[in-house]
Structure formats: C-alpha cells, structure tokens
C-alpha cells in the first residue's frame, strides 16, 4: 500500500462534477417520481373515493350516493368536484330513491392520547345524529379504541338528539357524555366503562362540531334537498 493510493478519494473534486452529479441525479429522481405518480394516481384516487364513500355510507344508513358540498363565504353550500383542499366540506348522502338520507360531517378534537378524527352522519330533517365512524384514533387499544367497536356505545349514535333551539342558532341541549348506565335523555351519550375519557372526548367533539354545523345545515337544507333532481341522471 502506498501513500498516494490511500490518499485518493481524499482529494477535493472540482465543483462542476458536484453540480453535475447533484443536478443530474435530481432530475433523474424527479422523473422517476413523476412517472410513478402519474401511474398510480388514478388507482389511488379511486381507492380514496371508495374509502370515503364507504365511511359516508356507514354513517348515513341507507345512502347509496355521495355529493360533496363546500361551505361558501356567504354561509351557503355549493356542490364541488375533486378533492377538497382548504375548503370546509360536508358530504350529502342520498338513498336509492334519491332522497337526502343525511349529511356526513368530519370532526376532530383532542382524545385521550392524541387527536381523534371522526365522521358522523346528521339528518337535518330529523335533527338527529344517525351514524358515527372513527377515521383516526390513537386511543389505547383495548380501552379507548372501544369507541370504534363497542356496540353499546355505537348504539348511542343511531338517533342522538341534536334538536336546535327555537331560533335555530344553537342546540337546545348540548350533546354530553354521561357515566355508563346513567343515560336518561336522548341527547346524552352513554359512556364506556374504562374509557370514560375517550367517550367524553367523542361527546365533546361531536357537540362542538354539531353546534357549528347544525344551524348552517338546517338553514341550507333546501340546497341539499333541492339538488336531488339536478344531480339525478
């Protein structure tokens, strides 16, 4: 072994080489990525749509068709295509007869461990929450994740009373979680023993969300029902 051999590679190379290497590889990578993106995009879009649809249909019993609406600056709703970016959206579900079956709303808030993301179905006609689905949760498996699995708990959401007050600007009775076995009123959520905190979090999240959305949705109910015909093919 001699000195020059070993010292090779320690020599500074010239800047052009470095530029060439980095930019060249950068371009190559960009190419690779774009190509694979283009190829997979349709499939992924389809997957996502299916997943969303599944969730929406789960929280709106009887729904077979979904239309996305976005909230405009004038507090009205208009139909939108494509993926929502910054807009606040809700998903209206229509049944086989093309009647409005309910509106699915996303809501999120602090759970026991981290942020909980929920989707719930709201029926503006009945003024009830008619379905509930957990989109994202880091609650403790075995405890907190019962909010996704516990049938007693899920039963709360097949008709949770969210009546508006007379002026239709706020809820008449706030949605509230109560201790397991002490549910007395239709606007109360019967908690899960051992997961009181997660249950309460669900209650809070829904309460906050529905207090905001229910008046809006209720006032614009015609937008959703009126659409029935137009979106029919």
């Amino acid at each position, binding site marked *: 072994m001699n000195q020059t051999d070993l010292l090779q590679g320690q020599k500074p190379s010239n800047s052009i080489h470095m530029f060439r290497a980095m930019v060249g590889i950068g371009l190559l990578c960009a190419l690779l990525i774009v190509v694979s993106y283009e190829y997979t995009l349709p499939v992924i879009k389809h997957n996502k749509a299916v997943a969303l649809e599944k969730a929406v249909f789960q929280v709106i019993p009887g729904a077979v068709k979904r239309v996305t609406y976005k909230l405009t600056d004038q507090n009205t709703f208009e139909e939108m295509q494509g993926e929502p970016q910054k807009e606040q959206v809700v998903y209206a579900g229509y049944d086989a007869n093309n009647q409005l079956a309910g509106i699915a709303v996303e809501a999120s808030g602090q759970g026991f461990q981290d942020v909980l993301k929920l989707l719930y179905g709201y029926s503006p006609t009945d003024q009830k929450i008619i379905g509930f689905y957990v989109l994202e949760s880091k609650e403790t498996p075995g405890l907190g994740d019962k909010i996704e699995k516990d049938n007693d708990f899920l039963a709360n959401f097949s008709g949770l009373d969210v009546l508006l007050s007379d002026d239709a600007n706020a809820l008449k009775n706030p949605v509230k979680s109560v*201790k397991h076995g002490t549910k007395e009123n239709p606007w109360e959520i019967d908690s899960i023993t*051992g997961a009181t905190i997660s249950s309460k979090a669900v209650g809070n999240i829904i309460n906050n969300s529905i207090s905001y959305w229910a008046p809006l949705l209720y006032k614009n109910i015609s937008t959703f029902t009126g659409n029935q015909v137009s979106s029919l093919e």
Partner: protein
Amino acid sequence: MSSLNKTLEIKTSPHIARGVSTDMIMRNVVYALIPVSIFAVYAFGLSALLVLITAVVSCVLTEHLLCVLTHKQSTVGDWSITITGLLFGLTLPPNFPLWMVFFGGVIAVALGKFIFGGLGYNTFNPALVGRAVLQASFPVAITTWHPAFSTDRFSTIASSTLTFPFMEPVYDTVSGATPLSVMKFEHIAAKTSDLFMGLTTGSSGETSALLILLGGAYLVYRKMMNWRIPASIFLSVAILSGILHTINSQYPAPDFMLLSGGLMLGAVFMATDMVASPITPIGVWIYGALIGTMIVVIRVWGGLPEGVMYAILFANAFSPQIDNLIRPRVYGTSSRWSRT
C-alpha cells in the same frame, strides 16, 4: 504468654460500627408494613389476602430463582425483596386476578431490579415498575375496584381473583369507584375522615392513611427512612392544591388530595425507596417537590384520575440528574460548583 503470640487480625479503621445493617433496615420496613397489610385484609377480605401472598411469593421466588440461575448467592435474605413484594401487592386492586399478580411480581423483580444489577442498583422502584407494566398490560383489570367492607368478604373470593391464567377476568359484584375517579368524573369529594381511616375503596394498601403514617413514623423514629421525602411531597401537594382550590373550588381541596389514592402509600413507602431517590438533603426536597407537583398536575389536568405511580417513576428517572446537579457545598470551599 501465649495469647500475645496469636495471629492478629488487621483491618482498616474504623473498628466499630453503628450496628444498623441493611437487612435490619429492610426487616423493619416489613414490620412497618404489617399493620397496613392487615388492614388491607380486614377491609377487602380473602381476595386481598390472596393477592398479597401471591405478590410476595412471586417476588421472592423470582429473586431466588434468578440468583440461582446466574450462580449468585441468593439475596432473598436481605429482606428487600419482601418489601418489594408486599408493596407491589398493596398497590393492586384487592380483586386483581392472581395470575396477573404473579406475572407482575416476576416483572417487578426481573425487569425492575435484577436486570439493573440487583439491590442498590435499581434505578426505578421495582414494585412500581411491576405495577406500571400491569397497568399498561391490563388497564381494565387494574382500574376495576372492589368495594371495601362488603359483608361476604371473608366467606367468598371475588370471581376475578381466581381467573384462569391468561384469561380475561369476569367481574361479578358491582364494582366500586375510588374517591379519585368519583372526583375526576363527578367532582364529588369523599369525606376526609373516611379517607383518613381507610373506609373507602381503592388499592389494597392505600386506603388507610392513618396506618401508613404510623408505619412511616416508626421508620423515621428508627432513622430508617428519610422523612424529608414524604414531607416535601405532602408540602408541595398541599401548597399546590391549596392554591388551585382557592382559585377555583372545582379543584379538589388539599386534605382530599393528600388523603386520597395512593399518595400516602406512595409518599411514605415508595418514594422513600432510597435506592431510586437522590441522596443529598436538598436533592431529596427537590425530588419530593417534583413528585408532589406531578401528582397534582396529573390529577387535576391529566387524563387519568391518579398519578402517584407515574410521578414517582418519573422522579426516579430524574434522581441521577438531581444528584448530579445538587451537590452540597463541600466544607472549606466557597461555591457549590467548585470543581478542582
């Protein structure tokens, strides 16, 4: 004169010793825990007795077997493992399934103590390591409480206690609620005198503040326990919760804070585990204050009703740092930080 031709022994000074030995200290801690254990059995009945026995047996057995496996002399004789077992048992719900108790005992000793090098090296309180693992493994079982002083407690054993190993426990009786969870979720405080005398529900050993304090007082009197640790925990909890309670009476009052949950047992017997706590007087005050503060924070703002275990474990993790940072001023030096 033959005795002058005897071979002398030579050893380094001092040639006398105070005569208090480690095994003696440990034995006395066991004595101090006996009234608490008896009360636990009295309040919760046969199930609690079984839990305590299983806890001690599993700990002692594990320690002995590990020593045998690693070709060391068994260290069961120094009694420290008996304390670990007893305290571990006392922190569990009285109706806790025995197989889980056994599992936790093995974990407490193997993971909490042995793997760190045994007596004197465990950086965390072994009993609490055992409990923390159980709490994370079986959160439902460990938060399901048996009511105290049920009438049939000496004639029947809770069905959950004898759950078949690895199976989910089934609960028969109406489960009780601890004063803390009632506080947390319904904002109702239990009566102070009940808390003090131990007439509430909770872990086997945590309910009677009176007996715990008596045991602690005995150890302080025998100079076998560092009184500063419970003192600083009590002080910090009382001050902090006092302030909060005056600001907003929704927050629990100091007397409730001090007497409810595992605070008494934790402060007197578990935070005082000298191995896992700092060694200098000032360091110990800081350690206690850290525990006290964290207990209040968890109880008041946290998701869990009780935080003593987490507080002590957290402070355990801090104690090497406390010892690093807090060093008494050495005689004849001017600053705390002087390093030659």
